């Protein structure tokens, strides 16, 4: 694994420090202590429980225990119609909720063999990227809180309000827009949306610069995150890490660019960011760059918005023909996909929801061995999960 900024000496010194502690713990014959982090805890984004066995300050064994927020989504989708499922899946990743609807709607459209008109595709992509900005800007603020810097969190909430207001003017809902429909969108954009979006994107770029200065460029932040929680490339692929976690381990894979979907990402000129290190700093850094890139995508798409209808001709009561379809997109948290099995009914027969955070957290037992207690928080913060996404 080639590293760019992280010297081998730094890695070795970190590992050597841990090994020295481990040797000392063995010599002193101390007893391990089992600690429950969560389910109520300031650090976990929700009700995640991690059971760690500590030897002093070093983790010997760690195991996340999920399910405190399990709502049984896959069972619930079996008794709902397709528009009702759209409402349901909003709530999987609640910070960037429009992005949850899109793969499901695309899968249903694939089964029906229709495509949304170009204007709807554009607007879908714009709203998708807006929800990415909303989601990751909160991550950047929350990152500071996990590490002890309380101030960036307030900037995050303040600046995220602009994006949420945008989403609200377009869809009517800040957190759960429920805006996507099979064949297009529910409504067209309101007047003034284009100018407002340009203003908000400028503000979000300023916010990203602020976070770059305040947090990512801070020496203490770098000391806390460099070399911590290194995920090598092959381990990342094996566990199915996706999104920024995968790109931070050096894998150049972005589902917006690497597959053909009826969305408008290929109409904009943007870059995929990767980082060779695979440590916590790399993950945080990649997400910051992605947020900036998302603002650029929105700017370009909002300029070239095509005219036309926003809804294809679909019957009022939608019965999706029988078949199976899989669509996955590059959601803010990673790769989110839906495998929709339809039997020609009003609702799906089976929906398998592939959520990104489930795979992202499954690496925790492997990754958390041998780290110090503060590093647990750093690693979890950099892996970034949302409980609704893990537990569905």
């Amino acid at each position, binding site marked *: 694994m080639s590293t760019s900024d992280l010297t081998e000496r730094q890695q070795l010194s970190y590992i050597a420090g841990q090994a020295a502690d481990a040797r000392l713990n063995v010599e002193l014959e101390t007893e391990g202590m089992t*600690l429950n982090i969560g389910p109520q805890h300031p650090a976990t984004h929700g009700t995640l429980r991690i059971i760690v066995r500590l030897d002093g300050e070093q983790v010997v064994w760690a195991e996340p225990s999920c399910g405190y927020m399990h709502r049984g989504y896959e069972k619930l989708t079996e008794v709902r119609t397709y528009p009702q499922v759209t409402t349901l899946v909003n709530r999987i990743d609640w910070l960037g909720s429009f992005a949850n609807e899109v793969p499901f709607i695309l899968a249903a459209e694939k089964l029906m063999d229709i495509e949304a008109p170009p204007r709807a595709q554009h607007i879908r992509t714009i709203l998708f990227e807006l929800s990415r900005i909303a989601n990751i800007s909160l991550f950047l603020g929350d990152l500071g809180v996990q*590490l002890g810097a309380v101030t960036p969190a307030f900037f995050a909430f303040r600046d995220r309000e602009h994006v949420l207001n945008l989403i609200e003017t377009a869809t009517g809902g800040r957190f759960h827009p429920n805006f996507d429909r099979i064949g297009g969108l529910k409504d067209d954009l309101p007047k003034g949306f284009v100018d407002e979006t340009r203003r908000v994107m400028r503000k979000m770029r300023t916010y990203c610069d602020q976070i770059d200065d305040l947090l990512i460029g801070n020496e*203490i932040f770098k000391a806390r995150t460099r070399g911590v929680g290194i995920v090598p490339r092959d381990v990342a692929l094996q566990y199915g890490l996706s999104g920024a976690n995968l790109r931070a381990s050096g894998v150049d894979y972005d589902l917006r660019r690497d597959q053909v979907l009826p969305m408008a990402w290929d109409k904009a000129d943007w870059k995929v960011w990767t980082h060779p290190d695979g440590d916590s700093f790399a993950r945080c850094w990649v997400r910051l760059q992605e947020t900036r890139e998302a603002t650029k995508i929105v700017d370009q798409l909002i300029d070239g918005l095509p005219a036309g209808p926003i809804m294809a001709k679909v019957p009022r009561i939608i019965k999706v023909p029988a078949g199976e379809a899989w669509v996955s997109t590059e959601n803010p948290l990673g790769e989110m996909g839906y495998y929709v099995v339809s039997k020609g009914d009003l609702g799906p027969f089976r929906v398998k929801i592939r959520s990104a955070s489930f795979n992202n957290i499954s690496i925790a037992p492997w990754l958390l061995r041998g780290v110090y207690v503060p590093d647990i928080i750093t690693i979890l913060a950099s892996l970034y999960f949302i409980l609704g996404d893990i537990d569905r």
Partner: protein
Amino acid sequence: MSALAIEIPYWGQSLLRVLGGIVAVLLPAGTIVYVFLFKMMSFMQSRLGPMEAGPYGSMQLFAEVGKWLQKEDLAPAQADQRIFKMAPLIVLVSTFLLVAVIPFGPDAWFTNFDVGVFYAMAVASISVLGILVAGWSSANKYSLLGGLRAAGQLIAYELPMVLAVIGVVIQAGSMNLQEIVVAQNAGSIFGWDGLGNPFVLTQFVGFVVFMIAVQAELTQPPFDMPIAESELVSGYMTEYSGFRFLIFFIAEFATVGVFSLVASVLFLGGWGVPFAWFGWDSIDSVDDWMNVGGPLIMLTKMMVLSFLIMWVRFSFPRFREDQLQRFAWKVLIPISLANIVVTAIIKVAV
């Protein structure tokens, strides 16, 4: 108290001293909490802070004190009850003991030890005991982790603090805090006495080391591993609520104030302005109104230094425990030792 014409009997003087001590501890605490914690931190985070209680939220502190006082007196069932209840008081006691030796004016002091600095440093480490005891007796794994971290950190950062102060002592030639103040205000820099001789100029390295060590002694970010809110909830304070948490809270900010007072005495010239401004020669020729002006000047200097401490607190993420220790042992202590050597050489040779 020669300023007053009346003779105050000894018990009266002691009572005044006690009241003065309480004011000297609680007034800085309250001011720092309101101005810096409620308002300055809020403005830096682009929000307003408490606005409801009183005009511009000025009564918020009283509201909070009242709230905590009326809470239930909880102690975990498995905690060691007597020690659990004693721990916050130990921390607060060290603050009161520390303020006893700070001079506020030419005659406005509580005690005037010849070994004031030695006493101050010794007493400042009593709070470490309180924190350890709190962490251990809480019967809570998070508190235990916080207490263990505090043990390592606070003991490690005692040393740079003491070593930084030694430079001041060498330069002033005395451990008596009153004489240190006089040495700064009556002194001169290369013959020009317009500014006196505040030790922050010559002991700049010592000043920086002292402030960093103070930040760590107070377990403020970036050195707040013992509290580490996102990991340990509240560290050693987790199980404390109501009145006992109020004591910890007051003790934390009172200690910020008192350490700022100590630092202003040691480095910024204490209660005085340069004597040359008023034509005073020595401590005896200082006018009596300075006994009233002195505390005000001390308050101002304390606010300046507390501002520094609080500003750093809200800005930085926290160090990890081993990085903390490495910083103390491998960076601060060698620097402060070098500072002592250079000071001693210059004092003797120049």
